[in-house]
């Protein structure tokens, strides 16, 4: 009998040069999945971690019990933020290619995740994003110029030159500082939510990680603490299929859905069409209501596709088919909401083009202003003394001495 290994080595369905194949993505028809009461037991809704919550159908109509029944004005605001995110991403990647910033990460194809996931919450709720939820900062009112100055590490950089581009934060917008280390913010968001409950406040926390980093222990700590203390927190796994070059099978996605981690901890796990603005909004609103009622946390798996490269340093054509994104069965979130509004008679191609042009001009103007505060190569520069501040609240003696050493000349 020939020896065959029993070791299973996951392989993505298609590699460069092969035809894209998304047969592994289990789909449900729009409107087909039941919407349980927000206070229902996690054990009674395990099917939600297998099925896919979808609202928008192929004719761009909203269907079924998860339809959040948003006003047209709200839908238009959502479209505006998603399109702004896309325009911003496109422009900022170009500035990276021109050598104006060192690094960039786009969220193309995933705009609904952050925009709908933020719009469905209250402004007082605290957000703990990963690095691909720039839409959250836009919804929470961060100025484009402020975000750009962070990318530029210039004299108006909110991080004072200490962080890689896209590691933003916003105190007034209640968006936590992005670490750059993956998954660490997930259990921290649970601690934040525990404190909210301890203090008797009505606020909740929401956090996002990728399916790839759900492999980290932090993910499991988050679910465990969220379950044990029934913390008012929404835990979002953004399943965009790819962690740099590693497909979701290596995070354990071949055996069970990521949403199914929830029921294992006694937490509802909802598998949601992440490219369907209405579905993301509705699932987030459901989880928020559940948390505010004291019924605890929810795990949302937002099924989406990372249409762009992982970062400006990545070339996905080396590990997946070039036309993968075009064949993604859940389409594009901007296009789908646009077509929904058109189907409602509340939008048009012309208005869409005009909006895109307006947002592009806005982003261009903001960039022009941001660069006046300095770039990597030109203009004013941050005071290097800032390197020594904020290590501790007060500057300790040894850092004073090292700062003085720097003053004697660098290099």
């Amino acid at each position, binding site marked *: 009998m020939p020896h065959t290994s029993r070791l299973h080595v996951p392989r993505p369905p298609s590699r460069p040069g092969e035809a894209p194949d998304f047969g592994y993505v289990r789909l449900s028809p729009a409107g087909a999945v039941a919407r349980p009461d927000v206070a229902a037991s996690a054990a009674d809704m395990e099917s939600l971690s297998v099925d896919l919550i979808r609202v928008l159908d192929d004719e761009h109509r909203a269907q079924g019990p998860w339809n959040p029944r948003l006003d047209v004005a709200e839908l238009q605001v959502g479209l505006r933020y998603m399109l702004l995110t896309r325009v911003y991403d496109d422009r900022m990647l170009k500035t990276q290619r021109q050598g104006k910033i060192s690094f960039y990460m786009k969220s193309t194809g995933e705009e609904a995740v952050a925009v709908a996931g933020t719009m469905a919450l209250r402004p007082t709720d*605290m957000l703990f994003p990963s690095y691909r939820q720039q839409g959250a900062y836009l919804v929470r009112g961060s100025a484009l110029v402020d975000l750009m100055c962070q990318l530029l590490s210039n004299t108006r950089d909110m991080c004072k030159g200490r962080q890689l581009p896209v590691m933003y934060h916003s105190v007034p917008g209640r968006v936590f500082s992005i670490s*750059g280390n993956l998954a660490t913010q997930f259990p921290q968001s649970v*601690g934040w939510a525990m404190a909210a409950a301890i203090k008797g406040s009505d606020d909740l926390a929401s956090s996002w990680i990728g399916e790839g980093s759900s492999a980290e222990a*932090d993910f499991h700590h988050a679910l465990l603490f969220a379950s044990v203390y029934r913390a008012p927190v929404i835990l979002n796994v953004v399943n965009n299929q790819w962690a740099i070059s590693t497909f979701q099978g290596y995070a354990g996605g071949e055996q069970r859905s990521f949403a199914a981690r929830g029921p294992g901890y006694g937490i509802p796990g909802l598998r949601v069409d992440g490219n369907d603005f209405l579905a993301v909004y509705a699932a987030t609103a459901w989880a928020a209501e559940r948390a505010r009622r004291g019924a605890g946390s929810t795990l949302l798996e937002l099924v989406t596709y990372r249409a762009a490269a992982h970062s400006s340093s990545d070339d996905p054509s080396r590990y997946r088919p070039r036309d993968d994104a075009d064949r993604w069965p859940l389409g594009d979130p901007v296009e789908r909401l646009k077509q929904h509004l058109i189907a409602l008679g509340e939008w048009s191609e012309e208005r869409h083009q005009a909006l895109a042009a307006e947002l592009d001009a806005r982003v261009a103007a903001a960039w022009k202003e941001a660069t006046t505060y300095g770039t990597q190569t030109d203009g004013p520069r941050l005071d290097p003394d800032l390197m020594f501040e904020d290590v501790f609240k007060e500057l300790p003696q040894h850092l004073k001495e090292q700062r003085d050493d720097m003053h004697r000349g660098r290099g």
Partner: protein
Amino acid sequence: MAQMNMIQALNAAMDITMTRDPSVVVLGEDVGYFGGVFRVTDGLQRKYGVHRVLDTPIAEGGIIAASIGMAVNGLRPVAEIQFADYIYPGYDQIVSELARLRYRSAGAFSAPVTIRTPCGGGIRGGQTHSQSPEALFAHVCGIKVVMPSNPYDAKGLLIASIEDDDPVLFLEPKRLYNGPFDGDPNKPAVPWSTHPKGEVPDGHYHVPLGKAEVIREGNALTIIAYGTMVHVAEAAARSLSLDAEIIDVRSIVPLDVETLCRSVAKTGRCVIAHEATRFSGFGAELTATIQERCFWQLEAPIQRVCGYDTPYPHAFEWEYFPGTQRVARALAAVMEAR
């Protein structure tokens, strides 16, 4: 004033801060209903309730991460890690997150978390209940590291740590919980009631972070130690009838370089003692710092007395432990050199 052992002193520090500041919460494995495996949090849950004294899952990474999130939301968590040997699952959350949050967000967010954890050997704890990992944290930018050697300092330093706006790792030498220990396991145990530092004020006070204490003035040489080794150093100097100046570092980060160097500049001779392993131990930093600043006053090479560079062995604890004999050998070597 009251007579307290170190457990009572630490308990009093938490009790006082919890009374004064409703944002102080305590969390950790077994700390709530049971009061902690060393009884340091005994009675706190009864007094302050289950929302302020939380038993947690056995997940150190989760404990530290939850503490960070709580602190960002306005609480002042005091997290217990049951043994310092168990802290490593939380190491990433401490090193990459807790210590750097203020820096990376340019002061927009910070997390005033105090992490208490029993450290050190001498209790037959073997390699998983005896470690002294202070150097692994002293090397990290943005977290303070403290180790008291007596009940008076334990209470004052813990109150100062909890009230500090920076994160603090508070290492508790567990061999000293019930009494001073001079390194000889064959002598009968001595209670803190026999020691002047077992006298602890009832109310609120600080022992400031960043200040070493000269616990014995002398002119022949300087011994720098912290934690359990302070008491071993005293016994070793006594055994040789040396006029040693003994300094209790107390605060590893920030380090009171001025007090250390003033003493060595005066005596010209220096021995450094810690329980932790020698190679890249904190003694190396102390040695380098003193050498840089006191080289021309030194009469002899600086000597280090440390744990051997092996895991902490269960059956050979007293061969491993840097006791009075080994410290005395180093003292004699430093005194003989000319």
